[in-house]
């Protein structure tokens, strides 16, 4: 009896202590005492980015905890283990210097010379393309060493030099002939051939590497589990594998210093866990994928501030295999496009986020100035469907489906199995297409199979997935140029899985890759877009919006569709 009483008392004490501890705020502690941040909820539209909330100045300090739904594989950004979006957003953007940053000008996100440079680089086109980067004398690493041209040279050599190994993506760097580092404050990059997207070099997903720190060492080993040096506003204090990443201010940063004392990213198992953790106050900001459950939860109401944007680098589309019947005929592809009310699909998926209109180009919204709007003609028009199908010999059968020579206008749609949003999209499309006379079946596959075998091998008729641009530069040649159809010539690594083979399109998409004159580049890109739309080489659907939710205590967040949601983390403040 005595034992029983003692246990009960202990249990009550434990319970009381748990509750008492919960009243404290050991997660998001802040030394802020007076200011209160703004509390605005903003919804963007398909082409606009929601503005960040602004507020009265809040005092500096505090620890902010953020939910991360993915742990990066490594922090060796140029290595084959790199390429993680969350790794880039959390650590790369916070610590790596880059030649160009991404800013918003009007409705467009554009690359601008960063504070690492003393000004915009100068470019010459002949006899070979050269780019001269003048380095800001104030730009230094956290060790106090200046950022120099040797760092540019080292970065190039690591990615595309003779000794480069185990590299994730050398595109662009493989067009560099040499980097002249004879003057420490000036890097002169000479290209083997014209390369119009040169602004994404020494930045984008990689950044500039510190030659003084890394020369003579195994770069991958030094970086892959996190590194202590930095030339950004933050330093990586620790990366506890499986648990989280902690950033602290870089005291030697030459730009605007962070106002928070510490930022902790907690790794969460999935979008659902992320959302629950936000609602429970375990994390104060999340950046979830736009899954159905998330959109529904937002629709039902979530505490805090939010920003939704359709102005992203994403294009989710119906990728049509142009070499497979019945879509090897242009008119049938056009009829398919006229069968679908794309705006209704987008509205069904993302309406609660304010994203209601379909995208009209495979150039994503962040490069809208290079994008045509020619797909806008494809609205649901069953008379037009009948006209096109009849023109190429189809007739409607008693079952309501088009048929030709005994073969029904039937096809299978394939997407990543288990993705609820895409499965819902398929269901909506299936109903619309049935009405138009197309028999659509669903044959989904695991992501590994879809992107590993099915799509590259052309074993599909229509597939639903997204392409993501990581830099605001146009460039559809990888997925539309006929030379990139998987073949022996390109060792089956070509990404034109749609087997698009339109002779008049090839020179235009190639021109976009090499033209420096922006006006000519825009013209070529738009002309290419028109040809793609006329042929319905595939059918763009939605911009896969970004969603950012954050506690009312935080001031400063806004989404940058390229650099991610933490691009201006150094300006954020936290109220008590």
């Amino acid at each position, binding site marked *: 009896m005595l034992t029983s009483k003692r246990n009960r008392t202990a249990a009550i004490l*434990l319970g009381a202590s*748990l509750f008492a501890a*919960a*009243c404290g*705020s*050991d*997660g*998001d502690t802040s030394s802020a005492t007076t200011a209160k941040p703004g509390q605005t909820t903003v919804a963007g539209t398909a082409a606009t980015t929601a503005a960040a909330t602004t507020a009265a100045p809040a005092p500096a300090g505090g620890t902010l*905890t953020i939910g991360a739904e993915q742990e990066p*594989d*490594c922090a*060796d950004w140029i*290595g*084959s*283990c790199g*390429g993680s979006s969350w790794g880039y957003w959390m650590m790369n953007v916070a610590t790596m210097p880059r030649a160009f940053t991404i800013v918003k000008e009007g409705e467009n996100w554009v690359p601008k010379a960063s504070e690492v440079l003393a000004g915009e680089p100068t470019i010459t086109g002949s006899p070979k393309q050269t780019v001269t980067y003048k380095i800001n004398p104030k730009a230094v690493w956290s060790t106090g060493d200046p950022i120099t041209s040797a760092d540019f040279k080292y970065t190039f050599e690591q990615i595309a030099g003779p000794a480069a*190994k*185990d*590299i994730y*993506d*050398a*595109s*662009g760097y*493989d067009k560099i002939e040499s980097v002249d580092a004879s003057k420490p404050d000036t890097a002169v990059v000479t290209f083997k051939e014209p390369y119009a997207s040169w602004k994404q070099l020494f930045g984008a997903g990689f950044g500039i590497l510190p030659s003084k720190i890394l020369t003579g060492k195994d770069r991958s080993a030094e970086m*892959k*589990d996190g590194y202590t040096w930095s030339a950004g506003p933050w330093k990586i204090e620790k990366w*506890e594998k*499986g*648990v*989280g990443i*902690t950033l602290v201010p870089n005291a030697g940063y030459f730009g605007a210093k962070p106002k928070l004392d510490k930022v*902790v990213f*907690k*790794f*969460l*198992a*999935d979008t659902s*866990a992320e959302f*629950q*953790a936000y*609602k*429970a*106050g*375990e*994390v104060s900001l999340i950046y979830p994928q736009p899954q159905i459950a998330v959109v529904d939860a937002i629709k039902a109401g979530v505490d805090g501030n939010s920003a939704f944007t359709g102005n992203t680098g994403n294009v989710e589309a119906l990728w049509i295999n142009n070499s497979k019947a019945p879509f090897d005929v242009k008119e049938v592809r056009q009829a398919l496009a006229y069968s679908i009310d794309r705006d209704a699909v987008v509205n069904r998926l993302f309406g609660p986020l304010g994203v209601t209109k379909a995208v009209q180009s495979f150039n994503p919204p962040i490069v809208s100035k290079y994008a045509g709007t020619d797909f806008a003609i494809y609205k649901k028009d069953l008379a037009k469907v009948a006209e096109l199908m009849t023109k190429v010999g189809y007739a409607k059968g008693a079952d309501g489906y088009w048929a030709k020579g005994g073969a029904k206008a039937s096809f299978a749609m394939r997407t990543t199995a288990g993705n609820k949003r895409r499965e819902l999209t398929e269901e909506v499309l299936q109903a619309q297409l049935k009405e138009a006379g197309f028999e659509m079946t669903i044959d989904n596959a695991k*992501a*590994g*199979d879809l*992107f*590993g*075998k099915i*799509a*590259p091998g052309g074993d599909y008729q229509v597939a639903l997935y997204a*392409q993501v641009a*990581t830099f605001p530069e146009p460039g559809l040649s990888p997925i539309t140029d006929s030379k*990139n159809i998987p073949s022996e010539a*390109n*060792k089956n*690594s070509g*990404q034109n899985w749609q087997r698009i083979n339109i002779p008049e399109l090839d020179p235009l998409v190639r021109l976009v890759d090499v033209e420096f004159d922006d006006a000519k580049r825009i013209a070529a890109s738009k002309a290419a877009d028109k040809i793609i739309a006329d042929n319905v080489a595939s059918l763009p659907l939605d911009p896969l919006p970004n969603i950012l939710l954050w506690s009312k205590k935080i001031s400063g967040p806004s989404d940058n569709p390229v650099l991610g949601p933490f691009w201006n983390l150094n300006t954020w403040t936290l109220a008590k």
Partner: protein
Amino acid sequence: MLTFIARRILYSIPVLLVSSFLVFVGVTKTFDPLQKFRIGIKDPNALQRAIDRLGLDKPVYEQYWKWLKGVLQGDFGVSYRTSGEVWPMITRSLGFTVQMIFWGILVALLFAIGIGIFSAIRQYSAADYALTGLSYIGVAMPAFWFGLILIQVFGVWLKQRLGWERSPLFFVGLHSTDSKGLNLDYARHLVLPVLTLSVQLIAQWSRFLRSSMLEVMSSDFIRTARAKGVPRRRVVFRHAFRNALIPLTTDVATQSGLLFGGLVITEQIFSIPGMGRLFLDSLAQGDVYVVLAYLMVTGVFVIIFNLVADLAYGLLDPRVRLS
């Protein structure tokens, strides 16, 4: 006994070899470690570089043999995903799983023993019926559902209801980022996952113990002890419980071994970076060397705990002799 142990270990080697080969073939044929190189990268040579680096152009048996030779020399290979050594990934994850198993089994045993004994000595009482009913619910309840309900109630609902800044109980990981050791933060993180893990174990083991207690309590030697005037508490705990413990010990040891690889759901729901999540993440990305190391480690644990069960059986019951 040493011969017995040696023989058991020898028997397990071919089992591990065959299962590791089957898993190797299954994972390499089903999942694609090159997925991220196939979409979104403009570098036409990236894919081929990755194939060359990982040796994926070689026949499966050759890839397996290379791995096996490494394992025999203590090298479990390099992860496709992280480019890091596999063994530190396993040991790091194992640390989290061991904590979960330790606390889960401890809590489950304490409750199961208490409930099992109580139900046996109060057979057919209202409390016995109530506990029996709860046990059936516990056995039938899926862990993932129970875990999500706990999170919703104790993590989200309670926090909103009380209007606190954070919930009283946490459900992300086993400790806050800046916290270490056995402290209140650890306790607040442990409660929900341990409850999720142990509820089914409590239900099963308490039923198990109740049955064996009832069987032992009706034995002649118990009746004799009672007739000799041995106090009831002593009869229950020293005579009946000790004998009833034998089958439970076997079950606990066997299930403990299985738990080393079977916490996938609990770890996923509570974002705990243990063996289960490592397995899931690695499998999804075709990281075959990590999956194989996971298989070997969990296989070894199952073998060890089965062996422990057999040995414990012999120790607890002198009538049983290992041969």
